[in-house]
């Protein structure tokens, strides 16, 4: 807010609007990653199964490919992307390593309840170079989390499963009420994915990570119900300026 005022005139408060808290959070995360050296790549929200699944080593038998999890369009010719990872596939196909990409945007899954929405936002990153290891990945994740939640926050890395990374991990932070909260997924890029993108996996390896923007925004702003973000309610939006 700013004000301009002449003598004996009331203050004229300029009524600014506000950025959407989700886009604001997405930009905050992406700007942070840009400061680490990542480059932004963009890609379409409507994808082919090849880019959304096959290239990422998500096999035909994976539950994510079922009609109840993924939105298929125009007689299964395309899908609404279920993650921003296909953007990175496109980036990898168009570039030679070393490279460090991030992509952020909307993704879609066939969910709709109090904790899940059919559309949400992700920021994902990938770094491919010679001699990238899990210790480097942990260093990057600590930096991201410390910038988001402060240097005193306690982290926990848990083994997990993503077809496109191996080893894979999920990262939890310890909340003020002593509960572990999952905040992101990450891992060492599966060599199959590198080979799919014409990258020699005997020479290069990579690390990758992905964050759910809504999850981070809910934690940072204290929003309890994810649906609040998408009601377009001015009483809600006006709080974020």
């Amino acid at each position, binding site marked *: 807010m700013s004000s301009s005022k002449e003598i004996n005139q009331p203050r004229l408060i300029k*009524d600014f609007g506000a950025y959407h808290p989700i886009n604001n959070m997405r930009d905050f995360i992406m700007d942070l990653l840009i400061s680490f050296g990542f480059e932004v790549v963009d890609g379409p929200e409507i994808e082919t199964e090849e880019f959304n699944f096959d290239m990422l080593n998500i096999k035909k038998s994976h539950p994510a490919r079922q009609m109840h999890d993924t939105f298929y369009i125009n007689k299964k010719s395309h899908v609404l992307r279920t993650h921003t990872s296909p953007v990175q596939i496109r980036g990898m196909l168009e570039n030679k390593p070393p490279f460090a990409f991030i992509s952020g945007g909307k993704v879609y899954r066939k969910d709709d309840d109090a904790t899940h929405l059919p559309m949400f936002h992700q920021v994902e990153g990938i770094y491919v170079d010679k001699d990238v290891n899990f210790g480097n990945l942990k260093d990057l994740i600590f930096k991201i989390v410390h910038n988001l939640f402060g240097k005193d926050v306690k982290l926990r890395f848990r*083994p997990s499963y993503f077809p496109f990374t191996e080893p894979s991990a999920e990262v939890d932070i310890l909340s003020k009420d002593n509960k572990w909260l999952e905040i992101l997924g990450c891992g060492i890029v599966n060599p199959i994915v590198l080979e799919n993108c014409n990258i020699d996996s005997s020479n290069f390896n990579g690390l990758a990570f992905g964050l759910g923007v809504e999850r981070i925004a809910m934690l940072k702003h204290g929003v309890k119900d994810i649906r609040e973000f998408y009601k377009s309610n001015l009483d809600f939006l006006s709080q974020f300026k």
Partner: protein
Amino acid sequence: MKVSYKSLLRNFKSKPSIIEISNKLFQLGHEHELENSIFDIEITPNRGDCLSLQGLCRDLGVFFDIDHKKNIYQGNLDILNLDFKNDFIEGCPNISFLKIKIDEHISDYKGDLKNYFLDLPNKKNNFFTDISNYISFETGQPTHCYDASKMDGRLTLKLLEGSHQFDTLLGDKINLIDKNMVFLLDDNIINLAGVMGGQNTSCTKKTREVIVECAYFNPEKLIGTSIKYDIQSDAAYKFERGVDPKCHENVLRRFIKIVSEHADIKSLALFSEGKEIKNKIIDLDIEIINKIIGVKFKMDQYKNYFKKLGFSIENNSIHIPSHRSDINTLNDLAEEIARVVGYDNINLQELKIPRKKKLTNNQIEKKIKAFLVDNGFYEVINFPFTKNKSKIKLDNPLDSNKKYFRDQLKESLINNLLFNERRQKDSIKLFEVSEIYSSLEETKSEKVLGVIASGRVGKNYLDFSKKINKKYIKEIFSPLTEKEFYFEEIARDSLDTKLRDPIIYFEIKLKDLPSNIIEYNSVSDSPKDFIQYKQISDFPSSKRDLSFSIKDFSKLDQLQELIFSIKNELLKDVFIFDYYKDTKNNIIKIGFRFTLQSEKETITDIQVDNVMNNIIELALSLESVDIPGLKNEK
């Protein structure tokens, strides 16, 4: 997967605490909740081998001394002469059938079978089905029991096409469509393979002779079947995640052993067919594994870790047990080692990403958003699903009334505007930036900006009485309009509203924005701090106006300071809506609008009056400040 602390402990030689086990399960990647000493574990989709008591014990065996061996039937088994034909080997490469007969009714259970029903809230069914369920819990291998007396005919496994009626053993009637892997007895469907058996051959409490089917179903041929027909099936869940293709004889011998613990077995015979399964072998290259994890472990350490995991090593080659279908590469082995070491125990190594060039993030989009926010607009994000026909149609929409992907933003923004009007907002300025698709031919979509506005121009004394119209919006955008934008006034006739204020809308592709947008310098900035959100009240608000007259002009600042500094939980907003300086009579008139709202209830007149009286009292305590028309005016 639910498993009790008690049932785990029965397999342990030591007695770790429940917290010790919980911590190790997390370290291994088995996220879980713990309630009443029962672990409710979410096994990741690649670890179908852990969907059993035995599987979990195998994994925990890395940390605890565990007795893996279960008693199995050690005797000879006759060959079962079964009229069976496998017409879908691709879907089921390995299958066994065990025929077993007893001649007594069993109702009291012993040993592990008894504990299974004591430890977990499992429902008893009949003797053979209960053993089958227990075996699935213990070994992870689903089996299916057919009542042998109902199995007269030729048994075939095939991929059946077309529409067929199938009655499940739970009594549900299912219309099978397209292609389904089924067991047929002659021409009758008796089992939706890997999902659920049929009613016509199911066991009952009277069953004395069973044929136990034990199979490996290819997950790719089975996936989605249970969801397609809305069948809750533990078997399908396990088969979809992969079971051990080599376990059949062991599992069936365990089945026999449990039967023998309860009854005299009158006859036994086994039918088995399938292809030979060889264990996978991976050359152990510890340099590569060290490089993946970022450690410097030596060969002896690796051998020790892999031994604990149950992998055998010969001449620097690792033989992968048949239950570990998830292990195929050195990266998989690296994950195994990292799990055992503990992800949290792997040291950080500083990551330095080499910089290539100056990196930026969507400059045009950022600039136009900043321009709009500076001019009082709020950004919204809408779901893209719409009832309005477009070239992008969802095959499986969540809402059948919204089966298209929007190709413009107008409809969404109009709905946003009307929503806020219904919430008594009288100055609404919104925008959205989103990708839209006019066809699937464009793999690179286009980002579009949509802007909508209606109501008062602003919440200040200069703009309060002005209404948003085309002229106002054009003026806002005049610094950018190298070329003419098309501003549209949306007719309210077809909208669900009684308001009459003009609605101004325009939509433009970001690439068509004037190039000078990039030079725009933002006045406001995106908030650096993370604002703590306050719950929005769903109760209606109430507005009150107060107009003051001020004779001593120097008191204007004091009055404003006072009004804007008032804190009250019911007072949500204050702004100056009117100002007039009467130089002739040497008096200033200033009007404030107050918005009051309760978070707990509909605000009452009494609550509003209490707040307002307090404000009036404070304001009137200032010298030369009056409220014209108020009874006790000074």
